[in-house]
């Protein structure tokens, strides 16, 4: 976690604005910090796509929760129910051991998956790899590809398809869902995901990035403040260089 107050202090130091009202939290620091957070999410997205980052970089944002898949072996990440905004799925783990031990509840209908708020993920022997839409159908009967339905034993090789909206107006009332194969209908599934960091609202908040990103957050926030100062300012070029260097190191 990074304390917002700490960030603001460091930014004031670099701006030489200690004790000054030239820059205010509500109008300058807060929008800059939130913009920097959004920018970092974008940068990390790109890095994740290229397998250049591991979850350890964002440990404060990683969660593992348990769902029950619907009868189509699909799971909806309902942000309103989970009370978190999804950034990205990191792992889908079928056949989990859950705590406390229990059997999955009965599904209310064919298409509704259930988020298990009071069930903890305790472990699994399986992990589903991500499939592409093109490979999804082609690999269904290929016994050596993830997501095949032929192997249901210890060699079961799970796969999941990215979020797709299968809904209809009347018969399948859902939003986007991931689909898992081989079939996990009515079974528990553990999902590890990244949540989008919560926006800063007061100076007493914390940012859910690891403390190792403090410098990057300071530099990028200053970079956004510098944009207001007009082009070719010293602050812009200095922070731009620092940010580029840090991102390169991270990648």
């Amino acid at each position, binding site marked *: 976690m990074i304390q917002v107050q700490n960030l603001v202090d460091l930014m004031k130091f670099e701006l030489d604005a200690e004790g000054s009202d030239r820059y205010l939290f509500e109008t300058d620091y807060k929008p800059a910090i939130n913009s920097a957070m959004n920018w970092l999410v974008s940068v990390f997205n790109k890095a994740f796509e290229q397998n250049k980052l591991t979850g350890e970089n964002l440990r404060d944002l990683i969660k593992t929760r348990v769902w029950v898949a619907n009868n189509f072996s699909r799971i909806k990440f309902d942000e309103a129910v989970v009370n978190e905004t999804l950034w990205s799925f990191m792992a889908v783990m079928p056949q989990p051991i859950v705590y406390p031990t229990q059997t999955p509840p009965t599904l209310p209908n064919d298409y509704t998956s259930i988020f298990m708020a009071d069930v903890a993920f305790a472990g699994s022997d399986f992990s589903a*790899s991500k499939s592409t839409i093109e490979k999804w159908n082609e690999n269904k009967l290929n*016994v050596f*590809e993830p997501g095949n339905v*032929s192997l249901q*034993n210890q*060699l079961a090789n799970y796969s999941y398809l990215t979020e797709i909206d299968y809904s209809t107006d009347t018969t399948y009332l859902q939003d986007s869902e991931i689909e898992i194969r081989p079939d996990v209908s009515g079974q528990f599934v553990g999902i590890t995901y990244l949540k989008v960091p919560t926006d800063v609202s007061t100076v007493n908040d914390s940012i859910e990035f690891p403390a190792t990103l403090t410098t990057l957050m300071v530099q990028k926030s200053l970079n956004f403040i510098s944009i207001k100062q007009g082009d070719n300012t010293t602050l812009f070029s200095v922070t731009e260089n620092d940010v580029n260097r840090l991102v390169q190191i991270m990648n």
Partner: protein
Amino acid sequence: MSNTILRYVVDDISKDLKQVADDKKIERAQVAYWVLMVGNRLKSQHIQKRDSGMFLHTYVGVPVEKVASSSNPNTVEGRKRIKLPASIFDFNKDRGIDYISYWIDDEVDCPPEFTNKTFTRTTPKTSAILYMDEYTKPSPSNPYWYLTGMEYVYFLGIEKVDVESIEIGLYSTFDPLTEIDLDAPFDFPEELLNVLKRQVLDLGRFVLQIPEERRNDGVSTTPAENIPTQKLISVNDSVNKSEE
């Protein structure tokens, strides 16, 4: 009992091939398939070389059925047969089946059930000759079996008696990939594990040498500088031949 389970063998080879990460190119099921494939070959050679019961598997109570209607191939109406309880090695003279026997209560000294009435192997082609001699004629006390196809064993001599089930001893192959138990003792001669591992590693190494470009992923990953720009000419082309 074997000290090794299939999971150890598969995971050992997967690790050596560096195929244990999430972006692996060879799935564990594929390594398991190779292990079973190579293992079946080595095991069959081993069984043929040794007079040993180590890999003989006995199945009791295998139900005998009388075929109700014919269908091609290998299903003939009115004949008695069993479905093999496991896949067998195709040894010479059907020696993948070591013995077949059934119990008939006509003995006084009560020998073990499986030695009561033992079937003798024949073939459909030579069966006719058996009926020409009183001593070889198939009968409940002198029954025969023959194999047709990979699934069914037919019987001669028990047509008129009620035999519900038989006992059979098989030299069987490994279970198929879809049914294999990774954590069961690995039914394989332990002294050949190193040969098995080496041969599967060779297979894996060969597979990993197949260029990625052979897969159509819709993306060209060849650097521009490696794309040939000049016409490729065969070494046998006339321009490459010199006058002796």
